[in-house]
């Protein structure tokens, strides 16, 4: 760590409101899932009121020294009355156990859904402290200064919330509006170009929760914050509402919509070494295409890259995957695509699988398990055929495609099944 970073004093971002976070310029991989070319910051804040001091979030444990040094430069542990935890991930709650040991009188404010995570963070020590479970709109009075809590579930954990300093209209947004970008100049109008980092962060952290992001923006917009103070990267004091707008845009559809509102989109992906699974794919495609109101597309994964397909899947209503069984498994490009779907929201979409096989046919049920794991609905049992399909079997494939398209189009007939048949 370069010494200029570590020795930078706290920054007063508004009268009596200090940034007391930590710089981590050397970080290159965060949470195992995203990269940063510029390190990151763990932003924590101290708000001084007439009747107390609130600390907003802490830092990653390894950076606690910087945090405590900055904290001590603006207040004393005795003076701390409140510790507001917007998010219990360890990059923000890592220094919490030590902070509470130093300021045991401080009252912890955490969302209802954060309680279990708080227990898991502080373990037995939680019994030594007081905490309040905050609901949407609850406030904390610091004497002439009010902190109002805004629940933002799933941005990006179930317990996440933002805290709004009402009189100054500063939004402490935690990971929301964050960026992994380490720059001592701290403010968005002074730091280097972090636009890429801001969008990249959204795409890797917030994208699976677009629906929730839009709900959160509905709550944040009316607050009209004059400054957004996130927990990573630049503090947004110039044009903060542009970033709110940006979150809305990023939460929209990634691709321009080609389908009418009444049409459903069904994507079929396949791989085939000797053409058997490819033959099945074409028949599934024909069958599905015969259903009105469903737009069906067919893709050979050999000719495509993962990323654009992820974008397509994000906007689709149903997906069917075809893979032969090779060495008791589906083929790698299928897994690469299925593994990449964690970046988007797939819950409730319709999924299905088919494939040709020789003797054991593991690929299809394995794909179905993965689709269920992605919280998709898998209402039709997968279609497996030994070697090349006969005419009769191709007909079965057509019917299979049809059945899935009918489900999508809402044309499936109600079914009654006996438990023993499942």
């Amino acid at each position, binding site marked *: 760590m370069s010494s200029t970073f570590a020795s930078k004093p706290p920054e007063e971002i508004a009268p009596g409101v200090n940034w007391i976070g930590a710089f981590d310029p050397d970080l290159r991989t965060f949470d195992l899932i995203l990269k940063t070319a510029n390190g990151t910051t763990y932003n924590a804040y101290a708000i001084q009121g007439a009747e107390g001091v609130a600390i907003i979030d802490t830092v990653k444990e390894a950076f606690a020294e910087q945090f405590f040094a900055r904290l001590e430069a603006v207040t004393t542990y005795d003076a701390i009355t409140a510790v507001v935890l917007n998010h219990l991930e360890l990059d923000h709650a890592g220094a919490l156990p030590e902070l509470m040991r130093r300021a045991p009188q401080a009252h912890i404010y955490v969302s209802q859904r954060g*309680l279990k995570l708080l227990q898991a963070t502080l373990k037995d020590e939680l019994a030594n402290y007081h905490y309040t479970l905050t609901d949407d709109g609850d406030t904390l009075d610091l004497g002439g200064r009010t902190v109002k809590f805004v629940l933002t579930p799933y941005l990006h954990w179930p317990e996440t919330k933002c805290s709004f300093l009402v009189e100054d209209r500063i939004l402490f947004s935690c990971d929301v509006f964050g960026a992994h970008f380490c720059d001592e100049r701290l403010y968005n109008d002074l730091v280097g170009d972090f636009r890429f980092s801001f969008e990249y962060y959204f795409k890797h952290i917030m994208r699976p929760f677009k629906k929730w992001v839009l709900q959160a923006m509905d709550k944040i917009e009316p607050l009209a914050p004059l400054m957004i103070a996130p927990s990573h990267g630049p503090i947004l004091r110039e044009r903060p509402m542009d970033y709110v707008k940006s979150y809305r845009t990023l939460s929209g559809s990634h691709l321009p919509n080609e389908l009418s509102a009444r049409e459903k989109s069904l994507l079929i992906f396949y791989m085939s070494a000797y053409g058997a699974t490819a033959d099945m794919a074409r028949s599934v495609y024909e069958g599905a295409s015969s259903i009105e109101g469903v737009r069906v597309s067919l893709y050979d994964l050999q000719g495509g890259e993962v990323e654009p397909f992820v974008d397509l899947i994000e906007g689709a209503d149903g997906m069917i995957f075809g893979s032969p069984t090779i060495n008791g498994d589906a083929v790698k490009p299928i897994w690469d695509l299925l593994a990449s779907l964690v970046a988007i929201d797939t819950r409730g979409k319709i999924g299905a699988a088919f494939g040709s096989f020789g003797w054991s046919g593991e690929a299809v049920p394995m794909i179905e398990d993965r689709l269920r794991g992605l919280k998709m*609905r898998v*209402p039709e049992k997968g279609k497996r055929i030994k070697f090349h399909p006969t005419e009769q079997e191709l007909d079965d494939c057509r019917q299979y495609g049809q059945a899935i398209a009918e489900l999508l189009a809402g044309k*499936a007939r109600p*079914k009654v*099944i006996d*438990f023993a048949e499942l």
Partner: protein
Amino acid sequence: MAKGKLTFADIDVSVNVPAGTRVIEVSEKVGAGIIYGCREGDCGTCLMKVEEGMENLSEPTVLEDKVLKENMAGKDMRCACQAQIIGEGEVKIKPA
């Protein structure tokens, strides 16, 4: 053995199930949209809306009650990993 009828409204599928069956045992097999996390009544991921026949489901356990409260679930909501079909009545559910 007593059989109840469990209907998944989101996919229009009904299953005749023996008394004592948990919803989770059926919903994934038929491909309904109810989703699961912990599978043991701790996380609330599996919240479902009971459209009909709440009286034909087992009473929530202490554990489930706690999760329902934590997730601010409405009166017509249950955890699909916990709720069991009792007796011969009909239950109609969909994802929350």
